């Protein structure tokens, strides 16, 4: 096994996913199979190969430090499930 059920549960919690027991079982099997498949890469000789940071061979895409128009607060909040005082309103995050 490449991954344990407990690890899948942990990763699920980090992703804020409420996984049922059945889902945990099936996902553990699926993720294990994926990792097994990817494991094949380990058979390649990668000595002297620079780690790839990006799939496109490109560097330094910059923008100038110039202010561009922003949304109005109304526009910014137009998709917010809840808002108040020009701000997104969420459940209180500290006591």
């Amino acid at each position, binding site marked *: 096994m490449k991954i344990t059920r407990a690890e899948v549960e942990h990763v699920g919690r980090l992703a804020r996913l409420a996984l049922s027991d059945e889902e945990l079982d099936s996902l553990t099997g699926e993720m294990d199979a994926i990792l097994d498949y990817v494991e094949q890469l380990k058979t390649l000789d990668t000595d002297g190969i620079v780690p790839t940071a990006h799939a496109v061979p490109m560097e*330094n895409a910059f*923008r100038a430090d110039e202010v561009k128009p922003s949304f109005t607060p109304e526009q910014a909040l137009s998709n917010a499930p809840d808002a108040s005082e020009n701000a997104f309103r969420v459940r209180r995050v*500290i006591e």
Partner: protein
Amino acid sequence: MTQRYETVIGLEVHAQLTTNTKIFCGCSTEFGQTPNSQTCPVCLALPGALPVLNQKAVELAIRTGLATNCQIAPRSIFARKNYFYPDLPKGYQISQFELPVCEHGWLDIDLENGERKRIGITRAHMEEDAGKLVHGDTPETSSNSLVDLNRACTPLLEIVSEPDMRSADEAISYLKKLHQIVVYLGVCDGNLEEGSFRCDANISVRPYGQEELGTRAELKNLNSFRFIKQAIEFEVERQIDLIESGGKVVQETRLFDSNTGMTRSMRGKEDAHDYRYVPDPDLVPLVISQEWIEEVRATLPELPEAKRSRFVEELGLTAYDAEVLAADRELADYFDASVALAKDAKSCANWIMGDVLRKLKETDTTIANAPVSPELLTGLLARIADNTISGKIAKKVFEKMWQNGQTADQIIDKEGLKQVTDTGAIESLVDEVIAANPGQVAEYLGGKEKLIGFFVGKVMQASQGKANPGMVNQLLKQKLTGN
């Protein structure tokens, strides 16, 4: 008991870079605006929006790296730091993990015993700030937190030190030095209260002689140098007490409460350290050429340390004067401009550190907005040097200059403050004073020579401060002994 333990401190400073726009989009970074009035699809994390790196932010990072003796990475990459919190719209923060832009730097700090100590800088990396959370305090919002994303995506440089500091004082000394440098460089406005310069402290203790580091606690919410010192000192005591009473330090994040002066555990972020960094596929690698580095290096200002030694070695100031004048870049520039005009560095230093700083404080003004410019100040010094006015009258003239921005010459003319150097005029005042104080004259002649000060004072008073004090002194001595 404290002496049996060694304190180990490492600091993480988040310096907000002084760009006009955010690090990955064109929204303004101006502080204190209407909530959510500085947002766009990129910093709100709307689907499909892509970040593009602000070149100015990179330049400011290089600048800071060079001034803190770091190596600038020829190639660095951005990474996603994954966690959920309402102030983080994307569900990850764009930061740097492997390959940060600056590494392996150091700063020297001055210890109380006069020695210098080198504090290592592990790395400095660019990242975006999160939004601001306000926890509701009205009946309507008391069960809510309000999210303002104006600050989200503001450029930060996180400067991480080695765990090289051994006391709160060393930590403060390092922080002040770093603060002074970033403000001098103009890469950060250094405002602790507005959160432009934030500090987290990693603190542990270990018995003296032990190689291995103790378990550390991370202190957050430190927004003044005084609080940082208080927080560190409290935390060190707490950890020692805990160990002494048989307990164990837990690795955790703790918040400093400035009302109680204590630190308390920040619960509820137990998964917070599992960030699952991955290279961000939305951003291409950052490549910094040697030419670019040299270009930035050429624009570095003279740093405080170099200024201090120049003030001492070339201008003959005391170490203390040099320290005060070099502490603030604009003050140092004001002093340099004054010396260039007046040549007499010592009197420039005295006037700036005395009257100019006092007026700035009284009127709550910054040196850049001082109504008395270096030109005006040195104009005044010239009139003292050529005996047009005495040092005492000069103080009055300075006050007027500060009020109306006129030159010393204009004020001296208008107010008739020119020093009286006419022997006849001074002589008659001296005669009057001698005639009016026969008792003191007798005492003086009886050997109480200190009384000369009394007579000089009387004559100066009678001349409304305008008589040349040297002449008064000389004439008095002649007349008194001639009696």
